């Protein structure tokens, strides 16, 4: 329990709400000596803010956006929805730059057993209709995901909360089905934004974020003005315009011509060109988003682990990082925990491209000189087309013939992914190792793309989730990562950076491992240079 109290205090200092002196005083009360308390503070210190001026307008262009865009958190599905959400609403918790949960609407939280939790809400957060944000709002908005007719993709993640009630105006008590030390991090998921008690129709949303929505046209543009009644650090910009420009060339041209100040979704192929363009800067941020191959273990030919190992050894990882991601990526080691995650196990030896080992395993699998079908699509992941072709070439020295089929993007997720034995796939960043591993590898998970089912792994997942001791927890995650690497159906190619771009007169756009769209600080940090 004292662990989480210290963490919330560190976070409060980082956000400038608790002075160093107060921190030391309180740390002393908890029995922590002065020297150690000082060390704890520097752990949480974020990078210095560049000097931004107050005023002006920031125009953002995103690569996602369509007529299904929504202002209703239960319908958030794309990054433009997330970006807009952090500008308009206040989440219960937010992710700091070390991927840890820090206070937002909830100013502190506690739990003795990681099963029963109490979240203490700030008392100074006001909605745009004048009312104060209370525990009732939290309970109502979260319960919307669990409703029977809910169409929310977040429902499976929230089902572990079996009891949720408001205890007075400013305390929310939750009881979980099983221990989960990561519960505060779960609420950094954009779908779990807190909205107004009673609001189900979002044509005129009531908001309490750093900006207020002025106009919204789904799939086209949203205009937001600074909310001067905001509880936190006021945003530098007077106005934010978020426009959807799906065509990458059009988006980059518009940035270079000065029509936008910030753009997302910079393609690796044009990185060099963009870096040379005058007045434009590239901002890259290591992330846990990754590209991978998915091999289904419940059907031929990938049900044979020797074949899976062969396919993993054939993967030319370093080449992918260099050619497809232009160096803006970190090599994957066939499990989904990224080097940016505190639970990343660096003891596991890094697997490399090894056609000889691949040949050995192919022979054992009886597939020497054989062939296999690989399915890919432009929508599968960043660089999916190049990945499939490079892999085909890399497979030749091992004597394996790879037949590549490019599937049309709008039917990929229904006809190829989780249907064909061997496909190219990719995952967006997830805030915790537990979430990522559960979503993709749990035996009964609906997104278990490899259909790999391992009881010991499932048990470890549950045990690690409820384990509060960091070292013990890390050891469990290490074991899980090893199991995946040796037996699993996922060959992770690389964790590629998120790359965005901005005009040179824009400042305050610091990298964040959650990505720009999930960076809770973006709206309150970005502005024009002073």
């Amino acid at each position, binding site marked *: 329990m004292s662990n989480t109290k210290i963490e919330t205090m560190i976070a409060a200092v980082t956000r400038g709400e608790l002075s160093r002196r107060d921190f030391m005083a309180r740390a002393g009360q908890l029995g922590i000596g002065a020297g150690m308390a000082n060390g704890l503070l520097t752990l949480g210190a974020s990078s210095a803010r560049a000097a931004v001026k107050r005023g002006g307008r920031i125009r953002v262009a995103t690569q996602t956006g*369509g007529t*299904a865009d929504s202002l209703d958190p239960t319908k958030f*599905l794309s990054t433009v929805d997330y970006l807009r959400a952090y500008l308009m609403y206040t989440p219960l918790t937010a992710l700091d730059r070390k991927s840890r949960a820090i206070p937002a609407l909830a100013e502190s939280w506690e739990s003795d057993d990681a099963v029963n939790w109490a979240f203490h809400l700030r008392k100074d957060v006001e909605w745009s209709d004048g009312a104060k944000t209370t525990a009732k709002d939290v309970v109502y908005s979260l319960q919307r995901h669990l409703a029977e007719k809910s169409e929310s993709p977040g429902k499976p993640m929230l089902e572990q909360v079996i009891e949720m009630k408001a205890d007075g105006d400013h305390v929310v008590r939750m009881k979980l089905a099983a221990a989960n030390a990561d519960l505060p991090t779960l609420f950094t998921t954009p779908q779990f934004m807190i909205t107004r008690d009673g609001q189900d129709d979002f044509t005129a949303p009531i908001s309490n974020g750093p900006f207020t929505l002025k106009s919204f046209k789904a*799939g086209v543009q949203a205009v937001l003005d600074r909310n001067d009644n905001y509880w936190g650090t006021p945003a530098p910009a007077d106005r934010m315009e978020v426009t959807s420009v*799906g*065509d990458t060339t059009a988006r980059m*041209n518009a940035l270079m011509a000065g*029509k936008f100040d910030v753009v997302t979704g910079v393609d690796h192929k044009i990185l060099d060109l963009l870096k040379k363009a005058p007045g434009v800067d590239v901002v890259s941020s290591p992330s846990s988003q990754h590209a991978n191959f998915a091999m289904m273990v419940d059907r031929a030919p990938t049900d044979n682990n020797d074949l899976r190992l062969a396919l993993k050894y054939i993967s030319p990882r370093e080449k992918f990082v260099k050619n497809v991601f232009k160096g803006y990526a970190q090599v994957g080691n066939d499990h989904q925990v990224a080097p940016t995650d505190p639970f990343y196990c660096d003891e596991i030896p890094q697997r490399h491209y090894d056609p000889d080992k691949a040949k050995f395993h192919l022979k054992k699998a009886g597939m020497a000189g054989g062939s296999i079908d690989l399915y890919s699509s432009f929508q599968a992941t960043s660089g999916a087309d190049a990945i499939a072709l490079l892999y085909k070439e890399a497979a030749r020295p091992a004597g394996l013939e790879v037949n590549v089929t490019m599937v049309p993007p*709008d039917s990929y997720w229904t006809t190829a992914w989780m249907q064909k034995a061997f496909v190219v796939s990719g995952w967006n960043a997830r805030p915790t190792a537990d979430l990522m591993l559960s979503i993709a590898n749990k035996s009964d998970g609906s997104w278990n793309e490899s259909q790999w089912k391992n009881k010991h792994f499932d048990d470890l997942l549950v045990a690690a989730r409820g384990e509060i001791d960091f070292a013990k927890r890390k050891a469990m995650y290490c074991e899980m990562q090893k199991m995946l690497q040796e037996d699993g159906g996922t060959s992770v190619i690389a964790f590629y950076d998120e790359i965005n771009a901005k005009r040179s007169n824009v400042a305050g756009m610091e990298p964040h491992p959650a990505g720009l769209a999930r960076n809770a600080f973006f709206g309150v940090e970005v502005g024009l240079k002073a």
Partner: protein
Amino acid sequence: MLRLVVTRLLLGLLVMWVVSVLVFAATEILPGDVAQAVLGQGITPEAAANIRERLGLNDPAYLRYFDWLGGLLSGDLGHSLASNFAIADEVADRLGNTLWLAGLAALISVPLAVTLGLVAAVHADTLLDRGISIGTLCFISVPEFFTAAVLVYFLAVKLQWLPPLAYVSQDPALGERLEALALPVATLTFAVLAHMARMTQTAVLNVMSSAYIEQAILKGASRIHIILHHALPNALAPIINVIALNLAYLVSGVIVVETIFNYPGLADYLVQSVAYRDIPVVQTVGMIFCATYVGLNMLADILAILANPRLRHPR
């Protein structure tokens, strides 16, 4: 004449009905449905089932088709499956955008094309004629995204004379709208010039071998006079048909230009809706495009008849 118009109208309605059935069937055959398209990789069986329940997608196909048809005939265009917004509002918005783009492009390209065609006809077999022929052929052979890319690179990024995206705020001033549409209109003009110009030239030159032209030459009329006063009026029918075809294309076929310039028009709406499997929208926009083709074709035929005195006053 009246009988002709009524017959054509009825035939047009029949064509539109057949097209509506074909479009519906084609979209149904595509794998996946709107629940899968909207939820994408984030799909859970429960969320998908709830979406299907809410949108009535569990009803059999023919029932859903007749539901839609009934709605259309009673004036209710329904709601988009992906966004739940009223289709009528969204379509009206985008139709306005499309008409502005198509209208401006037509206003510039049609007179320009006909003039070029006539110039080529007047100076047949000279360098000017060859030049116009080859030039317009080059423009039509180059894909629109290439023309657009070249125009945007020089005029928008390097010189910064014009905006690279055709975005306008709500209720823009005329000047702002013209500036935003300048590059898309230029791209489209290059794309449609060749067809109309070459047809004009060919139709006029075809007529030049008639007896009355020979008479005019013998009478000593200048070439320009002959072409403008004697040949052109008789060659109008095929020219009008080609213009009608290109106008219909400007309304329905300009998806590449709309994507590159991020212009929210009807073609972009249609493509997005097919990707989302948003059937009511696909049907509605499909009907609009079909009506455009049918209507413009009918108009072309009527004008062709009116232009020919022998057909205007049948004996």
